[in-house]
């Protein structure tokens, strides 16, 4: 880590008032969207420290989501690898099965306070969609979820869940028909009726205030993990690992450790099947700064500035952009961004299932795979905290169909 003013890592001054994390983030939106983003910013700033809102959210986190999520020592996996102790932050045990519920509850309460009637959002793997549909049902709002046609086929169980929860799933049918196109469709729908709808974007991406607001709602993951590891080990962790698509689960756990230079932080991107264009989504590793969906970030793009096609086994990581704060943390070298292939993620998916009885989401399996990769070479008195951001129930059919043969299924 280069010498960085610690204050710049402080959430209270990052981003600046225009939503910039260094040169990244901001609000690169047409003027029709600008006042809508400001409306959300103002509403969020107003309620975030409101004791009634905080109490309401705290209650739901505890009694609805089931927080705090446990920090589990993965002893079998650790013993097998023979190196650093691996701890899992069990966001997979949250109600709805992933970390996404953390910001969805916040956004749903915000929408309700703003007098909105409907929540809309994009979803990739369907985790954010399910979490938002859940939150909408709970607080009494309608919910439209935009989802790429390809993902709708791949993530069938989540599509069904959203329907059961009363949400409408609307396919995005242009381009590659995955997450990026779902975001386009959601923005378009949002502009049609900004008065009654609130766009609850699914990650720490998009125009200001989303990267800040979603981070703030996710930061509880880091706050808990920090306390839990201290209790278990009597010291801060040596390593923190999380997968990065847009980067919401990662920023959630990272945010508590950024100012502690003794903690190595690793953000893991999907390397897909190769580093050829269109066969991965390793944005921070191979992208160049650019603007997409209203913010500046590292972006996988071609020589004409068109967002490049992306592909990974994990739909939730399938995005050519990445959160602006991650882009900034890469530049100042505070976080080590690395990548894991589809194959390594699938291996980790089965390894965690068979050694610990925990089926991870394919997204989270990328973080697990990285921990497996580094654990053996680290001393036994060191620790790795992995953010197990979601459970793998949604992925089982896809994994067995595509990879089952290699694992005796």
């Amino acid at each position: 880590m280069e010498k960085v003013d610690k204050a710049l890592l402080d959430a209270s001054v990052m981003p600046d008032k225009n939503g910039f994390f260094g040169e990244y983030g901001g609000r690169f939106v047409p003027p029709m969207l600008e006042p809508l983003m400001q409306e959300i910013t103002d509403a969020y700033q107003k309620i975030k420290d409101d004791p009634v809102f905080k109490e309401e959210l705290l209650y739901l986190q505890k009694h609805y989501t089931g927080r705090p999520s446990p920090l589990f020592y993965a002893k079998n996996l650790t013993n097998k690898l023979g190196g650093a102790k691996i701890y899992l932050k069990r966001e997979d045990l949250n109600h709805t099965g992933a970390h996404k519920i953390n910001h969805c509850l916040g956004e749903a309460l915000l929408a309700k306070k703003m007098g909105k009637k409907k929540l809309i959002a994009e979803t990739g793997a369907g985790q954010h969609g399910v979490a938002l549909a859940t939150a909408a049902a709970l607080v009494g709002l309608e919910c439209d979820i935009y989802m790429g046609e390809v993902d709708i086929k791949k993530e069938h169980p989540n599509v069904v869940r959203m329907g059961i929860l009363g949400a409408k799933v609307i396919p995005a049918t242009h381009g590659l028909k995955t997450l990026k196109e779902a975001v386009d469709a959601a923005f378009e729908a949002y502009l049609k009726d900004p008065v009654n709808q609130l766009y609850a974007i699914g990650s720490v991406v998009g125009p200001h205030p989303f990267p800040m607001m979603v981070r703030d709602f996710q930061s509880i993951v880091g706050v808990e993990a920090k306390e839990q590891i201290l209790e278990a080990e009597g010291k801060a962790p040596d390593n923190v690992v999380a997968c990065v698509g847009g980067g919401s689960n990662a920023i959630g756990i990272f945010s508590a450790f950024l100012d502690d230079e003794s903690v190595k932080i690793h953000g893991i991107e999907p390397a897909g099947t190769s580093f050829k264009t269109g066969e991965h989504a390793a944005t921070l590793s191979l992208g160049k700064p650019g603007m997409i969906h209203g913010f500046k970030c590292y972006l996988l793009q071609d020589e004409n500035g068109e967002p490049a096609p992306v592909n990974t086994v994990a739909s939730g990581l399938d995005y050519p952009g990445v959160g602006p704060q991650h882009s900034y943390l890469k530049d100042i070298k505070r976080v080590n961004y690395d990548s894991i292939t589809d194959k390594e993620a699938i291996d980790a998916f089965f390894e965690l299932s068979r050694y610990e009885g925990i089926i991870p989401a394919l997204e989270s399996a990328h973080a697990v795979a990285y921990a497996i990769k580094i654990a053996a070479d680290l001393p036994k008195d060191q620790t790795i905290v992995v953010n197990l951001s979601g459970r793998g129930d949604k992925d089982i059919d896809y994994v067995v169909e595509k990879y089952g043969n290699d694992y005796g299924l």
Partner: protein
Amino acid sequence: MNRIKQLFQDKKDILSIYYTAGYPNLGDTVPILETLEKSGADLVEIGIPFSDPLADGPTIQHSGETALKNGMSLNVLFEQLAEVRSKVKMPLILMGYINTVHKYGIEAFAEKCNEVGVDGVILPDLPFQVYLDEYKDTFDKFGVSNIFLITPQTPDARIKLIDEKTNGFIYMVSSASVTGAKKGLSDEQLAYFDRVNQLNLDNPALIGFGIGDNASYKETCKFADGAIIGSAFVKLLGESGDLHQNIQSFIKSIKG
């Protein structure tokens, strides 16, 4: 005097047409331009296609997608426009999204605009403050005007600042929606036009979004220096029949 200023000095009820470069076919960009000038369009905005156009409705989105499939890019567009000034005289504006230009390089882009004879640029997702801080000097150096969009929600102070810091025209988005929205003027829109007119801006103003026939064009011209037609024209380009014949009849019908 630059071509944009000259136009507004010479003419009233400006008809500005937007279309997407490379649509319906890659080679149509310049022929469409020539037909537009012959048919009586006063100003043209050529859209640089982008796959994630946050300000555009389905019609223009679709044209962009097709154009990209056809192989359109900023490089190709500049190649097509290399000889354009021997063919058309009217002011030309490029309209696109910031990432395309950012990737091309701001300086290279502004220089190329100047070289081929592009008079102005509209980048709807470029924040005004970022423009002032990072882009303005470069565009000024090459004499390329930046045109900014305002909406019914844009505060007076911002409109005045845009007026002060840019020279070209002000693009008044008639409603806070994406392109290709409904026709007809509401009380809110009339109040908005009135509010802008009372600011006594130095720059002329054109009204865009939701204009597609003679009635809406004429109506709009009462409140500004002219009107911009986008989606309705792009939709026409996708229709069957002789492209150039269609364009001529369309412009004629608009002008009435």
